């Protein structure tokens, strides 16, 4: 910036920096603490932030290796952490893809078509989603138990049931995408209609390419939302090999025997897919995709 600034401004810059550092510290501390715990020998939650002694024992367990403890006994991994991680990634990816597909098509209808009860539907969906989902747990369990009797692939203990349950939570995403669609000038699509495009072609070839950033945002949000989801997954999945990491890592903290170190390693591991998805999506989250289409 080449704008001339006054003396007073320097103080503001200092204050801003101080504030940002403080904020950063508050945000980063828990993360660093978890990383630190996962690298400390023994299963203790407290200790120095910078470990005095680095031990990879928790990481070995998390990654499925055994290690020989200080007392000479071999310690085998108590839980299949990598399998859980894989389950999580599978469920979250499929859910996020389906959520994006459902909510963009629904948002297109809400943004561009005229039909009866449109606003009641929109508001109703949002209202329903405002109830804590925990309140519906009993119902969700009952529904999938019943469904499972007829369609075993959709019953309790299947990942399909979890994914379908997650698809219920698209209302906020529909709102987000609808809001974005409404900022895109309608003339562009109208021109496509005059050019001979069907509704589907208009949606797919004209509107969607302009909406890539918001689709990515929704994908990331849906991915994060489903990969960290606990209540629904915990009632639909019980058997060890079916669990997602969010549900499974709770096992470290059971039986009055808190394995903080192992838990921390699994926690750091669970952050990995989120980070990767975010980094991959970031490239697509850019502004200005619609610029140049219409005159100012």
């Amino acid at each position, binding site marked *: 910036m080449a704008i001339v600034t006054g003396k007073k401004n320097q103080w503001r810059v200092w204050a801003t920096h101080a504030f940002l550092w403080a904020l950063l510290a508050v945000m980063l501390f828990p993360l660093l603490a978890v990383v630190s715990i996962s690298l400390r020998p023994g299963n203790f939650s407290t200790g120095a932030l910078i470990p005095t002694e680095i031990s990879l024992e928790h990481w070995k367990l998390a990654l499925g290796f055994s290690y020989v403890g200080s007392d000479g006994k071999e310690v085998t991994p108590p839980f299949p952490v990598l399998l859980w991680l894989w389950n999580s990634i599978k469920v979250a990816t499929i859910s996020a893809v389906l959520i994006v597909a459902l909510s963009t098509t629904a948002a297109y209808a809400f943004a561009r078509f005229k039909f009866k009860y449109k606003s009641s539907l929109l508001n109703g969906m949002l209202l329903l989603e405002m109830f804590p989902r925990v309140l519906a747990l009993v119902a969700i369990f009952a529904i999938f138990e019943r469904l499972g009797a007829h369609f075993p692939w959709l019953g309790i203990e299947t990942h399909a049931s979890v994914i379908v349950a997650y698809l219920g939570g698209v209302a906020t995403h529909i709102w987000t995408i609808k809001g974005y669609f409404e900022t895109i000038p309608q003339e562009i699509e109208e021109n496509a209609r005059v*050019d001979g495009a069907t509704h589907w072609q208009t949606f797919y070839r004209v509107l969607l390419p302009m909406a890539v950033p918001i689709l990515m945002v929704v994908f990331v949000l849906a991915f994060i939302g489903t990969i960290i989801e606990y209540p629904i997954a915990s009632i639909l999945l019980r058997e060890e090999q079916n669990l997602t990491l969010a549900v499974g890592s709770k096992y470290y903290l059971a039986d009055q025997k808190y394995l903080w170190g192992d838990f921390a390693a699994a926690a750091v591991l669970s952050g990995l897919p989120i980070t990767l998805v975010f980094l991959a999506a970031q490239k697509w989250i850019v502004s200005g995709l619609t610029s140049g*289409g219409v*005159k100012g």
Partner: protein
Amino acid sequence: MAGVKLANVQKSFADVHVLKDINLQINDGEFVVFVGPSGCGKSTLLRTIAGLEEITSGTLHIGTELVNDVPPSDRGVAMVFQSYALYPHMNLFDNMAFGLQLAKVPKDEIAKLVHSAAKTLNIDHLLDRKPKALSGGQRQRVAIGRAIVRKPDVFLFDEPLSNLDTELRVRMRYEFAKLHEDLKTTMIYVTHDQVEAMTLADRIVVLRDGRIEQVGTPMELYENPVNEFVAGFIGSPRMNFLKGEIANVQGDEASVKLTNGTTVNAKISSPASSSIAQVNLGVRPENIRIDNQSKSVACPVKFVESLGSQTQIYCEMPGMEELLTVVVNGTVRVKAGDIVPLAWNSDDCYVFGADGKALTQRTTQAMRAAA
């Protein structure tokens, strides 16, 4: 190629009645311009022809086909929007080729059509670019090019030149004229701009508040407006209107007594108006001259706008509320505060009744030519 025929077309949005009983026949190959004040329904009328709005009642024919319920893509129309509405994520080639691709035209044929249109519009060196990387004028050409390549029966242009600078407008105006001459396709063109309307149109349609006020060639509208609105709308600067009442009618010659007591003669052709009636006397600024003669009125000058080739003088007529606009040659030097003698011919006056209807009928140039 096709004409367009609208009969009793009405259009309402919920409870907003936008188009009111539109009857209009546009001939094959004609260049028709819609003008009218902002919000009068020009874009809406164009969009109903395109099929982007359903008409509430009435019939719309394109060619011989009734198209009330035909989707836009099957109407054989191409539209250039008020905003250009380019596809921002496609390069220029794809922008222009999109319609053809949807119509499953063979690839090499598409390339040929696009390149030839681009060449005509002088954008063939930009085909790889995205719309973002273009100037306003270039975007405009892409929008036009996109319409041309589809070889429509009817072109619809919604204020295509607004937002361009004056120089570019003039050049593009010429290009529109040339385009019409080359393609000889029916074109319907919406504009705010007097000059565009007068220069491009075979016929002008003047709209007000969702109704057609008058349809005619540019000179017909200029010489023979059917009412005060059209008279004020066509011609720039706008016609002067002076309030008065008819004092006396002899044959086709009426004396109009202005509110300041002056009596002015004017031609009228509706004899029914011989009763004493409130009227408006209309005189075009270009028909008033600075002239010292017995009938001249001495008017103080309020302010002056010099445009170089011509000078617009705004005068106060003694005893009248309305300012009088006068257009004179740019060589005439007057300044505010001067008192100038103004005169005009009674032949150049128009008389409008209290309801705004013109009481003056002229022999137009067209009629004179025919006679």
